[in-house]
Protein backbone atom coordinates (compact mmCIF):
# COMPACT_ATOMS: atom_id res chain seq x y z
CA UNK A 1 0.00 0.00 0.00
CA UNK A 2 2.86 2.31 -0.81
CA UNK A 3 4.45 4.78 1.54
CA UNK A 4 3.60 4.95 5.22
CA UNK A 5 1.14 7.58 6.43
CA UNK A 6 3.18 10.19 8.24
CA UNK A 7 1.54 12.29 10.91
CA UNK A 8 3.14 15.19 12.73
CA UNK A 9 1.68 16.50 15.98
CA UNK A 10 2.77 19.91 17.28
CA UNK A 11 2.63 20.25 21.04
CA UNK A 12 3.58 22.84 23.61
CA UNK A 13 4.31 22.56 27.28
CA UNK A 14 2.42 25.21 29.26
CA UNK A 15 2.11 26.03 32.95
CA UNK A 16 -0.84 24.41 34.70
CA UNK A 17 -3.21 27.35 34.47
CA UNK A 18 -5.13 26.22 37.57
CA UNK A 19 -1.99 26.60 39.69
CA UNK A 20 0.13 29.32 38.12
CA UNK A 21 0.52 32.51 40.16
CA UNK A 22 0.47 36.03 38.78
CA UNK A 23 2.14 38.95 40.48
CA UNK A 24 -0.38 41.76 40.32
CA UNK A 25 2.22 44.45 41.11
CA UNK A 26 4.92 43.56 38.62
CA UNK A 27 2.76 41.92 35.97
CA UNK A 28 5.01 38.88 36.05
CA UNK A 29 3.87 35.36 35.42
CA UNK A 30 5.64 33.16 37.93
CA UNK A 31 6.14 30.10 35.74
CA UNK A 32 8.01 28.32 38.52
CA UNK A 33 4.83 28.41 40.63
CA UNK A 34 3.16 25.76 38.51
CA UNK A 35 4.37 22.48 37.06
CA UNK A 36 4.49 22.25 33.29
CA UNK A 37 1.92 20.14 31.49
CA UNK A 38 1.07 19.50 27.88
CA UNK A 39 -1.31 22.12 26.53
CA UNK A 40 -4.69 20.41 27.04
CA UNK A 41 -5.85 21.08 23.46
CA UNK A 42 -2.76 19.36 22.06
CA UNK A 43 -3.68 16.06 23.71
CA UNK A 44 -6.76 15.98 21.50
CA UNK A 45 -4.55 16.52 18.45
CA UNK A 46 -2.37 13.60 19.52
CA UNK A 47 -5.41 11.41 20.12
CA UNK A 48 -6.68 12.20 16.61
CA UNK A 49 -3.28 11.17 15.25
CA UNK A 50 -3.30 7.92 17.23
CA UNK A 51 -6.75 7.02 15.93
CA UNK A 52 -5.70 7.63 12.34
CA UNK A 53 -2.56 5.60 12.87
CA UNK A 54 -4.63 2.73 14.24
CA UNK A 55 -6.56 2.63 11.00
CA UNK A 56 -3.79 3.34 8.49
CA UNK A 57 -0.60 2.30 10.19
CA UNK A 58 2.15 4.83 9.69
CA UNK A 59 3.99 6.94 12.20
CA UNK A 60 3.51 9.89 14.52
CA UNK A 61 6.28 12.41 15.08
CA UNK A 62 5.89 14.93 17.88
CA UNK A 63 7.53 18.33 17.53
CA UNK A 64 7.74 20.84 20.33
CA UNK A 65 9.69 24.02 20.94
CA UNK A 66 10.55 25.15 24.44
CA UNK A 67 12.95 24.82 27.32
CA UNK A 68 14.59 21.53 28.21
CA UNK A 69 11.93 20.64 30.80
CA UNK A 70 9.39 20.30 27.98
CA UNK A 71 10.97 16.86 27.47
CA UNK A 72 8.48 15.54 30.03
CA UNK A 73 5.59 16.45 27.70
CA UNK A 74 7.32 14.68 24.82
CA UNK A 75 7.90 11.59 26.97
CA UNK A 76 4.21 11.66 27.85
CA UNK A 77 3.30 11.79 24.15
CA UNK A 78 5.56 8.80 23.47
CA UNK A 79 3.90 6.94 26.33
CA UNK A 80 0.53 7.56 24.72
CA UNK A 81 1.73 6.00 21.48
CA UNK A 82 3.74 8.49 19.42
CA UNK A 83 6.78 7.06 17.62
CA UNK A 84 9.30 9.86 17.56
CA UNK A 85 9.76 13.12 19.46
CA UNK A 86 11.82 16.18 18.63
CA UNK A 87 12.39 19.07 21.01
CA UNK A 88 13.64 22.35 19.56
CA UNK A 89 15.51 23.98 22.37
CA UNK A 90 18.01 26.76 22.00
CA UNK A 91 18.34 30.24 23.53
CA UNK A 92 18.40 31.53 19.96
CA UNK A 93 14.85 30.21 19.51
CA UNK A 94 13.56 31.72 22.75
CA UNK A 95 11.32 34.76 22.95
CA UNK A 96 9.62 33.90 19.67
CA UNK A 97 6.24 35.38 18.77
CA UNK A 98 3.80 33.34 16.68
CA UNK A 99 5.41 34.04 13.31
CA UNK A 100 8.93 33.22 14.54
CA UNK A 101 7.58 30.08 16.23
CA UNK A 102 5.82 29.06 13.03
CA UNK A 103 9.04 29.55 11.05
CA UNK A 104 11.00 27.30 13.41
CA UNK A 105 8.32 24.61 13.30
CA UNK A 106 7.94 24.84 9.52
CA UNK A 107 11.71 24.57 9.06
CA UNK A 108 11.73 21.47 11.26
CA UNK A 109 8.94 19.88 9.25
CA UNK A 110 10.66 20.67 5.95
CA UNK A 111 13.83 19.09 7.24
CA UNK A 112 11.94 15.92 8.17
CA UNK A 113 10.79 15.54 4.58
CA UNK A 114 7.55 13.99 3.39
CA UNK A 115 4.44 14.10 5.61
CA UNK A 116 0.70 13.60 5.15
CA UNK A 117 -1.01 15.35 8.03
CA UNK A 118 -0.11 17.89 10.72
CA UNK A 119 -2.26 18.12 13.83
CA UNK A 120 -2.26 20.73 16.57
CA UNK A 121 -4.56 22.10 19.26
CA UNK A 122 -6.81 25.05 18.40
CA UNK A 123 -4.77 27.28 20.74
CA UNK A 124 -2.65 27.14 23.88
CA UNK A 125 -3.79 28.10 27.36
CA UNK A 126 -0.83 30.49 27.82
CA UNK A 127 -0.49 32.32 24.50
CA UNK A 128 -4.20 32.00 23.62
CA UNK A 129 -3.51 33.03 20.02
CA UNK A 130 -4.42 30.03 17.88
CA UNK A 131 -2.17 31.50 15.20
CA UNK A 132 0.78 29.14 14.99
CA UNK A 133 -1.12 26.31 13.27
CA UNK A 134 -2.49 28.33 10.31
CA UNK A 135 0.85 30.18 10.04
CA UNK A 136 2.73 26.89 9.76
CA UNK A 137 0.27 25.76 7.06
CA UNK A 138 0.88 28.94 5.09
CA UNK A 139 4.65 28.63 5.37
CA UNK A 140 4.48 25.00 4.19
CA UNK A 141 2.02 25.94 1.43
CA UNK A 142 -0.59 23.39 2.44
CA UNK A 143 -4.30 23.81 3.24
CA UNK A 144 -5.60 23.89 6.79
CA UNK A 145 -8.88 23.65 8.65
CA UNK A 146 -9.26 25.30 12.05
CA UNK A 147 -11.52 24.37 14.99
CA UNK A 148 -11.96 20.81 13.75
CA UNK A 149 -14.52 19.03 15.95
CA UNK A 150 -15.00 15.93 13.83
CA UNK A 151 -12.93 13.92 11.35
CA UNK A 152 -15.33 12.20 9.00
CA UNK A 153 -13.13 10.42 6.51
CA UNK A 154 -9.43 9.99 5.81
CA UNK A 155 -7.95 8.60 2.62
CA UNK A 156 -4.40 8.70 1.32
CA UNK A 157 -5.29 11.74 -0.79
CA UNK A 158 -7.72 13.76 1.28
CA UNK A 159 -9.46 14.30 4.58
CA UNK A 160 -13.04 15.34 5.37
CA UNK A 161 -13.51 17.34 8.55
CA UNK A 162 -16.14 19.41 10.34
CA UNK A 163 -14.93 22.87 11.27
CA UNK A 164 -16.76 24.51 14.19
CA UNK A 165 -16.87 28.21 13.42
CA UNK A 166 -20.08 28.85 15.37
CA UNK A 167 -21.91 27.42 12.39
CA UNK A 168 -20.38 24.08 11.44
CA UNK A 169 -18.99 23.49 7.97
CA UNK A 170 -17.90 20.29 6.27
CA UNK A 171 -14.63 20.66 4.41
CA UNK A 172 -12.58 18.35 2.25
CA UNK A 173 -8.86 19.10 2.25
CA UNK A 174 -6.28 17.71 -0.08
CA UNK A 175 -3.39 16.08 1.76
CA UNK A 176 -0.91 17.03 3.01
CA UNK A 177 -2.88 19.36 5.25
CA UNK A 178 -2.90 20.81 8.75
CA UNK A 179 -5.76 20.67 11.27
CA UNK A 180 -6.22 22.62 14.48
CA UNK A 181 -8.58 20.69 16.72
CA UNK A 182 -11.09 21.45 19.48
CA UNK A 183 -11.66 19.50 22.67
CA UNK A 184 -14.91 18.09 21.28
CA UNK A 185 -13.03 16.02 18.73
CA UNK A 186 -12.26 13.10 21.04
CA UNK A 187 -11.28 12.02 24.55
CA UNK A 188 -7.52 11.63 24.88
CA UNK A 189 -6.36 8.22 26.06
CA UNK A 190 -4.01 7.85 29.00
CA UNK A 191 -0.53 6.41 28.68
CA UNK A 192 -0.37 2.64 29.02
CA UNK A 193 2.10 0.87 31.28
CA UNK A 194 3.82 -0.55 28.24
CA UNK A 195 3.92 2.91 26.74
CA UNK A 196 5.41 4.37 29.89
CA UNK A 197 8.17 1.78 29.90
CA UNK A 198 8.89 2.38 26.24
CA UNK A 199 8.90 6.16 26.71
CA UNK A 200 11.28 5.82 29.63
CA UNK A 201 13.85 4.16 27.42
CA UNK A 202 13.18 6.34 24.37
CA UNK A 203 15.44 9.21 23.43
CA UNK A 204 13.98 12.65 22.86
CA UNK A 205 15.85 14.15 19.91
CA UNK A 206 17.19 17.56 20.83
CA UNK A 207 17.47 19.99 17.94
CA UNK A 208 18.92 23.50 18.03
CA UNK A 209 18.71 26.39 15.59
CA UNK A 210 21.70 24.85 13.81
CA UNK A 211 19.49 21.97 12.66
CA UNK A 212 17.16 24.43 10.93
CA UNK A 213 19.61 26.59 9.02
CA UNK A 214 18.91 24.90 5.70
CA UNK A 215 15.33 26.20 5.87
CA UNK A 216 15.44 29.28 8.09
CA UNK A 217 18.08 31.90 8.82
CA UNK A 218 18.93 32.83 12.40
CA UNK A 219 17.43 36.30 12.02
CA UNK A 220 14.02 34.76 11.25
CA UNK A 221 13.94 32.81 14.51
CA UNK A 222 13.43 33.46 18.19
CA UNK A 223 13.19 36.96 19.61
CA UNK A 224 15.18 38.34 16.68
CA UNK A 225 12.71 36.98 14.16
CA UNK A 226 9.67 38.19 16.05
CA UNK A 227 7.55 40.95 14.56
CA UNK A 228 5.66 41.75 17.73
CA UNK A 229 6.94 42.87 21.12
CA UNK A 230 5.21 42.67 24.45
CA UNK A 231 5.88 46.10 25.96
CA UNK A 232 3.86 45.75 29.15
CA UNK A 233 1.90 43.15 31.03
CA UNK A 234 -0.73 43.88 33.62
CA UNK A 235 -2.72 41.50 35.79
CA UNK A 236 -6.25 42.80 35.72
CA UNK A 237 -7.56 43.03 39.26
CA UNK A 238 -11.08 42.29 40.30
CA UNK A 239 -11.28 45.28 42.63
CA UNK A 240 -13.86 47.04 40.49
CA UNK A 241 -16.34 44.40 41.61
CA UNK A 242 -18.52 45.27 44.56
CA UNK A 243 -17.89 41.89 46.16
CA UNK A 244 -20.99 42.00 48.35
CA UNK A 245 -21.66 38.61 49.91
CA UNK A 246 -25.19 37.85 51.02
CA UNK A 247 -26.52 35.02 53.13
CA UNK A 248 -29.72 34.04 54.79
CA UNK A 249 -33.36 34.82 54.18
CA UNK A 250 -32.93 38.34 52.86
CA UNK A 251 -30.29 37.45 50.27
CA UNK A 252 -32.65 36.48 47.48
CA UNK A 253 -34.83 39.50 48.01
CA UNK A 254 -31.82 41.82 47.79
CA UNK A 255 -30.56 40.14 44.63
CA UNK A 256 -33.99 40.43 43.12
CA UNK A 257 -33.97 44.17 43.84
CA UNK A 258 -30.52 44.54 42.32
CA UNK A 259 -31.58 42.74 39.16
CA UNK A 260 -34.66 44.91 38.80
CA UNK A 261 -32.80 48.13 39.49
CA UNK A 262 -29.63 47.56 37.50
CA UNK A 263 -30.66 45.35 34.67
CA UNK A 264 -34.29 45.73 33.85
CA UNK A 265 -34.32 49.51 34.04
CA UNK A 266 -34.68 51.12 30.69
Amino acid at each position, binding site marked *: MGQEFRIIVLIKQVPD*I*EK*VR*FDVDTGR*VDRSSAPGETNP*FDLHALEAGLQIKERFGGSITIISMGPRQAESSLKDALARGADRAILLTDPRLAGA*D*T*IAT*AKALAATIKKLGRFDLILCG*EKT*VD*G*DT*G*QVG*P*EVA*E*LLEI*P*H*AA*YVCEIREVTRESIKVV*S*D*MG*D*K*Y*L*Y*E*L*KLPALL*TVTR*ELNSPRLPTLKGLLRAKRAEIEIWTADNLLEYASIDQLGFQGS*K*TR*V*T*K*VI*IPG*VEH*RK*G*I*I*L*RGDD*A*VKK*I*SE*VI*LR*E*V*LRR
Partner: protein
Amino acid sequence: MSDILVYAETAGSAIHPVTFELLGKAGELAERLGLKVSSAVLGYNISDEAPELIYHGADKVYVYDDERLRDLNVISYKNVLVRLAREIKPEIFLLGATPWGRSLAPRIAAALDTGLTADCIDLQISEDGRLIQVRPAFTGNILAYIETTSKPIMATIRYRVMKKPPRDPDRRGEIIARKPEGIDEEWVRCLGKISEKRVSLADAEVIVAGGRGLKRKEDLRLLEELAGLLCGVIGVSRPLVEEGWISKDHQVGFSGNVVKPKLYIACGISGSPQHLAGMRDSNMIIAINNDPSAPIFRYADYGVVADLYDAIPKLIHSLTEAMSREGRSSRRA
Protein backbone atom coordinates in the same frame (compact mmCIF):
# COMPACT_ATOMS: atom_id res chain seq x y z
CA MET B 1 -2.43 58.50 1.74
CA SER B 2 -2.18 55.05 3.16
CA ASP B 3 -4.90 53.07 4.74
CA ILE B 4 -6.29 51.19 7.63
CA LEU B 5 -7.76 48.13 5.96
CA VAL B 6 -10.76 46.46 7.58
CA TYR B 7 -11.83 43.02 6.41
CA ALA B 8 -15.63 42.90 6.25
CA GLU B 9 -16.58 39.39 7.25
CA THR B 10 -19.62 37.88 5.59
CA ALA B 11 -21.25 34.61 6.32
CA GLY B 12 -23.82 33.95 3.67
CA SER B 13 -24.73 37.44 2.59
CA ALA B 14 -24.89 39.45 5.81
CA ILE B 15 -21.95 41.42 7.14
CA HIS B 16 -20.87 40.28 10.58
CA PRO B 17 -21.55 43.10 13.08
CA VAL B 18 -17.95 43.00 14.36
CA THR B 19 -17.08 44.65 11.03
CA PHE B 20 -18.95 47.83 11.95
CA GLU B 21 -17.22 47.93 15.33
CA LEU B 22 -13.86 47.66 13.55
CA LEU B 23 -14.81 50.45 11.15
CA GLY B 24 -15.66 52.65 14.15
CA LYS B 25 -12.29 52.02 15.77
CA ALA B 26 -10.48 52.35 12.45
CA GLY B 27 -12.12 55.73 11.91
CA GLU B 28 -10.91 56.90 15.31
CA LEU B 29 -7.37 55.70 14.67
CA ALA B 30 -7.35 57.08 11.14
CA GLU B 31 -8.18 60.54 12.39
CA ARG B 32 -5.39 60.47 14.96
CA LEU B 33 -2.82 59.03 12.56
CA GLY B 34 -3.84 60.84 9.38
CA LEU B 35 -4.91 57.73 7.49
CA LYS B 36 -7.90 56.66 5.39
CA VAL B 37 -10.20 53.74 6.14
CA SER B 38 -10.59 51.09 3.47
CA SER B 39 -12.62 47.94 3.68
CA ALA B 40 -12.65 44.74 1.66
CA VAL B 41 -15.71 42.56 1.35
CA LEU B 42 -15.65 39.13 -0.29
CA GLY B 43 -18.51 36.78 -1.09
CA TYR B 44 -21.31 36.15 -3.53
CA ASN B 45 -24.22 38.56 -4.00
CA ILE B 46 -22.74 40.86 -1.40
CA SER B 47 -22.36 44.03 -3.52
CA ASP B 48 -25.52 45.51 -2.04
CA GLU B 49 -23.85 45.46 1.37
CA ALA B 50 -20.94 47.69 0.33
CA PRO B 51 -22.69 51.02 1.02
CA GLU B 52 -23.28 49.91 4.62
CA LEU B 53 -19.52 49.82 5.09
CA ILE B 54 -19.31 53.42 3.93
CA TYR B 55 -22.21 54.46 6.17
CA HIS B 56 -20.25 53.03 9.09
CA GLY B 57 -16.96 54.73 8.34
CA ALA B 58 -15.16 53.31 5.30
CA ASP B 59 -13.80 55.80 2.76
CA LYS B 60 -13.20 53.17 0.15
CA VAL B 61 -14.66 49.69 -0.27
CA TYR B 62 -13.12 46.95 -2.39
CA VAL B 63 -15.83 44.52 -3.44
CA TYR B 64 -15.05 41.01 -4.58
CA ASP B 65 -18.44 39.63 -5.55
CA ASP B 66 -17.97 36.28 -7.22
CA GLU B 67 -19.75 32.95 -7.16
CA ARG B 68 -16.44 31.25 -6.47
CA LEU B 69 -16.28 33.15 -3.17
CA ARG B 70 -19.67 31.87 -2.04
CA ASP B 71 -18.09 29.38 0.35
CA LEU B 72 -15.59 30.25 3.05
CA ASN B 73 -12.47 28.87 1.40
CA VAL B 74 -9.49 29.97 3.44
CA ILE B 75 -7.05 29.68 0.54
CA SER B 76 -9.11 31.76 -1.89
CA TYR B 77 -9.88 34.42 0.70
CA LYS B 78 -6.26 34.56 1.79
CA ASN B 79 -5.02 34.92 -1.78
CA VAL B 80 -7.43 37.76 -2.57
CA LEU B 81 -6.65 39.68 0.63
CA VAL B 82 -2.88 39.18 0.36
CA ARG B 83 -2.95 40.57 -3.18
CA LEU B 84 -4.96 43.58 -2.07
CA ALA B 85 -2.64 44.22 0.89
CA ARG B 86 0.42 44.01 -1.36
CA GLU B 87 -1.19 46.51 -3.73
CA ILE B 88 -2.54 49.15 -1.35
CA LYS B 89 0.08 48.60 1.40
CA PRO B 90 -2.05 49.42 4.43
CA GLU B 91 -0.40 50.61 7.64
CA ILE B 92 -2.87 48.64 9.73
CA PHE B 93 -5.01 45.65 8.79
CA LEU B 94 -7.86 44.63 11.11
CA LEU B 95 -10.06 41.54 11.13
CA GLY B 96 -12.72 40.33 13.56
CA ALA B 97 -11.54 37.74 16.07
CA THR B 98 -14.35 35.41 15.06
CA PRO B 99 -13.43 31.76 14.46
CA TRP B 100 -13.26 32.48 10.74
CA GLY B 101 -11.16 35.62 11.26
CA ARG B 102 -8.80 33.77 13.55
CA SER B 103 -8.34 31.03 10.96
CA LEU B 104 -7.84 33.41 8.04
CA ALA B 105 -5.71 36.18 9.59
CA PRO B 106 -2.65 34.06 10.50
CA ARG B 107 -2.37 32.76 6.94
CA ILE B 108 -2.43 36.32 5.61
CA ALA B 109 0.12 37.45 8.21
CA ALA B 110 2.46 34.58 7.35
CA ALA B 111 2.13 35.30 3.62
CA LEU B 112 2.88 38.99 4.20
CA ASP B 113 5.59 38.08 6.72
CA THR B 114 4.22 40.47 9.29
CA GLY B 115 3.25 40.45 12.97
CA LEU B 116 -0.27 39.54 14.03
CA THR B 117 -1.86 40.11 17.42
CA ALA B 118 -4.77 37.85 18.31
CA ASP B 119 -8.07 38.66 19.93
CA CYS B 120 -7.40 42.27 20.94
CA ILE B 121 -9.77 44.03 23.30
CA ASP B 122 -8.31 47.49 22.82
CA LEU B 123 -6.18 49.48 20.40
CA GLN B 124 -4.44 52.57 21.71
CA ILE B 125 -2.04 55.12 20.29
CA SER B 126 1.04 55.97 22.32
CA GLU B 127 2.18 59.56 22.82
CA ASP B 128 4.64 59.19 19.98
CA GLY B 129 2.01 57.80 17.63
CA ARG B 130 2.64 54.07 17.82
CA LEU B 131 -0.20 51.57 17.84
CA ILE B 132 -0.51 49.58 21.06
CA GLN B 133 -2.56 46.40 20.91
CA VAL B 134 -4.05 45.14 24.15
CA ARG B 135 -5.02 41.51 24.51
CA PRO B 136 -5.71 38.97 27.22
CA ALA B 137 -3.39 35.95 27.55
CA PHE B 138 -2.83 33.11 30.00
CA THR B 139 -6.49 32.14 29.79
CA GLY B 140 -7.54 35.71 30.47
CA ASN B 141 -5.37 36.09 33.57
CA ILE B 142 -3.12 38.79 32.14
CA LEU B 143 -3.40 41.70 29.73
CA ALA B 144 -0.48 42.10 27.35
CA TYR B 145 0.35 45.38 25.60
CA ILE B 146 1.89 44.60 22.22
CA GLU B 147 3.60 46.60 19.51
CA THR B 148 4.28 45.39 16.01
CA THR B 149 7.59 46.14 14.29
CA SER B 150 6.56 45.19 10.74
CA LYS B 151 3.97 46.49 8.29
CA PRO B 152 1.10 46.11 7.99
CA ILE B 153 0.35 45.92 11.69
CA MET B 154 -2.21 43.14 11.80
CA ALA B 155 -4.68 42.35 14.56
CA THR B 156 -7.86 40.42 15.13
CA ILE B 157 -10.33 42.20 17.42
CA ARG B 158 -12.82 40.57 19.73
CA TYR B 159 -16.52 41.00 18.97
CA ARG B 160 -18.45 43.44 21.18
CA VAL B 161 -15.55 45.24 22.78
CA MET B 162 -15.43 48.22 20.41
CA LYS B 163 -18.37 50.58 20.01
CA LYS B 164 -20.42 50.36 16.85
CA PRO B 165 -20.43 53.79 15.21
CA PRO B 166 -23.75 55.40 14.28
CA ARG B 167 -24.94 54.63 10.76
CA ASP B 168 -24.76 57.71 8.58
CA PRO B 169 -26.50 57.18 5.22
CA ASP B 170 -25.27 60.58 4.02
CA ARG B 171 -21.65 59.50 4.27
CA ARG B 172 -19.94 59.24 0.89
CA GLY B 173 -17.17 56.96 -0.22
CA GLU B 174 -15.82 55.07 -3.17
CA ILE B 175 -16.94 51.55 -4.09
CA ILE B 176 -14.50 49.64 -6.23
CA ALA B 177 -15.59 46.34 -7.80
CA ARG B 178 -12.74 43.91 -8.23
CA LYS B 179 -12.30 40.53 -9.86
CA PRO B 180 -10.82 38.01 -7.45
CA GLU B 181 -7.58 36.33 -8.42
CA GLY B 182 -6.01 33.29 -6.87
CA ILE B 183 -9.21 31.27 -6.43
CA ASP B 184 -8.42 27.85 -5.01
CA GLU B 185 -9.97 24.98 -6.90
CA GLU B 186 -7.71 22.26 -5.65
CA TRP B 187 -6.84 22.36 -1.95
CA VAL B 188 -10.00 23.07 -0.01
CA ARG B 189 -13.59 22.21 -0.88
CA CYS B 190 -16.43 23.38 1.30
CA LEU B 191 -19.08 20.67 1.17
CA GLY B 192 -21.62 22.84 2.92
CA LYS B 193 -22.86 24.15 6.20
CA ILE B 194 -24.01 21.22 8.29
CA SER B 195 -25.42 23.04 11.30
CA GLU B 196 -26.26 26.55 12.36
CA LYS B 197 -25.40 28.06 15.64
CA ARG B 198 -28.66 27.99 17.54
CA VAL B 199 -28.00 30.54 20.21
CA SER B 200 -25.61 33.44 20.20
CA LEU B 201 -24.31 33.92 23.71
CA ALA B 202 -22.07 36.73 22.49
CA ASP B 203 -25.16 38.79 21.68
CA ALA B 204 -27.06 38.06 24.90
CA GLU B 205 -27.78 40.85 27.39
CA VAL B 206 -28.54 38.46 30.22
CA ILE B 207 -27.00 35.02 30.73
CA VAL B 208 -28.08 32.60 33.42
CA ALA B 209 -25.33 30.03 33.69
CA GLY B 210 -25.19 26.67 35.41
CA GLY B 211 -22.29 24.52 36.50
CA ARG B 212 -21.49 21.40 38.40
CA GLY B 213 -23.79 22.49 41.21
CA LEU B 214 -26.66 21.21 39.07
CA LYS B 215 -27.46 17.61 39.91
CA ARG B 216 -29.40 16.48 36.86
CA LYS B 217 -29.82 17.53 33.24
CA GLU B 218 -33.54 18.20 33.88
CA ASP B 219 -32.58 20.86 36.40
CA LEU B 220 -31.45 23.12 33.56
CA ARG B 221 -35.18 23.92 33.31
CA LEU B 222 -34.86 25.88 36.52
CA LEU B 223 -32.26 28.11 34.86
CA GLU B 224 -34.33 28.29 31.71
CA GLU B 225 -37.22 29.64 33.72
CA LEU B 226 -35.07 32.33 35.31
CA ALA B 227 -33.48 33.19 31.97
CA GLY B 228 -36.89 33.40 30.34
CA LEU B 229 -38.07 35.83 32.98
CA LEU B 230 -35.10 38.11 32.30
CA CYS B 231 -35.21 37.72 28.50
CA GLY B 232 -31.85 36.01 28.74
CA VAL B 233 -30.29 32.80 27.56
CA ILE B 234 -28.73 29.81 29.24
CA GLY B 235 -24.99 29.40 29.57
CA VAL B 236 -23.10 26.52 31.13
CA SER B 237 -19.60 25.65 32.27
CA ARG B 238 -17.62 23.07 30.32
CA PRO B 239 -18.39 19.96 32.40
CA LEU B 240 -22.08 20.19 31.50
CA VAL B 241 -21.28 20.21 27.79
CA GLU B 242 -18.92 17.30 28.27
CA GLU B 243 -21.69 15.41 30.07
CA GLY B 244 -23.81 15.94 26.97
CA TRP B 245 -26.50 17.89 28.81
CA ILE B 246 -26.53 20.78 26.33
CA SER B 247 -24.82 21.84 23.09
CA LYS B 248 -21.51 23.66 22.98
CA ASP B 249 -23.28 26.80 21.71
CA HIS B 250 -24.13 27.36 25.38
CA GLN B 251 -20.63 26.88 26.78
CA VAL B 252 -19.08 29.91 28.45
CA GLY B 253 -15.31 29.90 28.90
CA PHE B 254 -11.93 29.90 27.30
CA SER B 255 -12.73 26.97 25.05
CA GLY B 256 -16.35 28.02 24.52
CA ASN B 257 -17.83 31.47 24.17
CA VAL B 258 -16.35 34.63 25.59
CA VAL B 259 -19.30 36.75 26.70
CA LYS B 260 -19.93 40.23 27.99
CA PRO B 261 -23.60 40.54 28.95
CA LYS B 262 -25.18 43.23 31.08
CA LEU B 263 -25.91 40.59 33.69
CA TYR B 264 -24.29 37.22 34.30
CA ILE B 265 -25.86 34.99 36.94
CA ALA B 266 -23.56 32.07 37.79
CA CYS B 267 -25.47 29.28 39.49
CA GLY B 268 -23.50 26.44 41.03
CA ILE B 269 -20.35 27.46 39.18
CA SER B 270 -17.18 27.41 41.26
CA GLY B 271 -15.20 29.60 38.84
CA SER B 272 -12.31 27.71 37.23
CA PRO B 273 -9.81 29.93 35.39
CA GLN B 274 -11.10 28.55 32.11
CA HIS B 275 -14.66 29.60 32.98
CA LEU B 276 -13.65 33.00 34.37
CA ALA B 277 -11.82 33.76 31.11
CA GLY B 278 -15.16 33.60 29.35
CA MET B 279 -17.25 35.86 31.57
CA ARG B 280 -15.10 38.07 33.77
CA ASP B 281 -15.81 41.17 31.66
CA SER B 282 -19.57 40.96 32.15
CA ASN B 283 -21.04 44.25 33.34
CA MET B 284 -22.56 42.75 36.45
CA ILE B 285 -21.88 39.33 37.90
CA ILE B 286 -24.09 37.63 40.45
CA ALA B 287 -22.96 34.27 41.83
CA ILE B 288 -25.06 31.74 43.67
CA ASN B 289 -23.07 28.94 45.25
CA ASN B 290 -23.30 26.93 48.44
CA ASP B 291 -19.52 26.94 48.91
CA PRO B 292 -18.43 30.27 50.42
CA SER B 293 -14.84 29.65 49.32
CA ALA B 294 -15.73 29.26 45.62
CA PRO B 295 -13.40 31.47 43.49
CA ILE B 296 -16.38 32.83 41.56
CA PHE B 297 -17.29 35.00 44.57
CA ARG B 298 -14.09 37.01 44.13
CA TYR B 299 -15.24 38.00 40.65
CA ALA B 300 -18.83 38.71 41.59
CA ASP B 301 -20.53 42.00 42.36
CA TYR B 302 -23.04 40.10 44.45
CA GLY B 303 -22.53 36.65 45.86
CA VAL B 304 -25.27 34.62 47.45
CA VAL B 305 -24.07 31.79 49.64
CA ALA B 306 -26.97 29.41 49.25
CA ASP B 307 -28.13 26.17 47.72
CA LEU B 308 -29.21 27.01 44.19
CA TYR B 309 -32.15 24.61 44.49
CA ASP B 310 -33.43 26.78 47.27
CA ALA B 311 -32.36 30.21 46.03
CA ILE B 312 -33.39 30.11 42.36
CA PRO B 313 -37.07 29.22 42.86
CA LYS B 314 -37.23 31.96 45.48
CA LEU B 315 -35.56 34.39 43.11
CA ILE B 316 -37.98 33.51 40.32
CA HIS B 317 -40.87 34.02 42.71
CA SER B 318 -39.55 37.32 43.99
CA LEU B 319 -38.82 38.67 40.50
CA THR B 320 -42.22 37.58 39.17
CA GLU B 321 -43.97 39.37 42.00
CA ALA B 322 -41.93 42.53 41.63
CA MET B 323 -42.41 42.58 37.87
CA SER B 324 -46.14 42.20 38.09
CA ARG B 325 -46.21 45.03 40.66
CA GLU B 326 -44.14 47.12 38.28
CA GLY B 327 -46.47 46.20 35.41
CA ARG B 328 -49.46 47.37 37.42
CA SER B 329 -47.86 50.67 38.38
CA SER B 330 -46.67 51.41 34.85
CA ARG B 331 -50.17 50.79 33.55
CA ARG B 332 -51.44 53.34 36.02
CA ALA B 333 -48.87 55.85 34.83
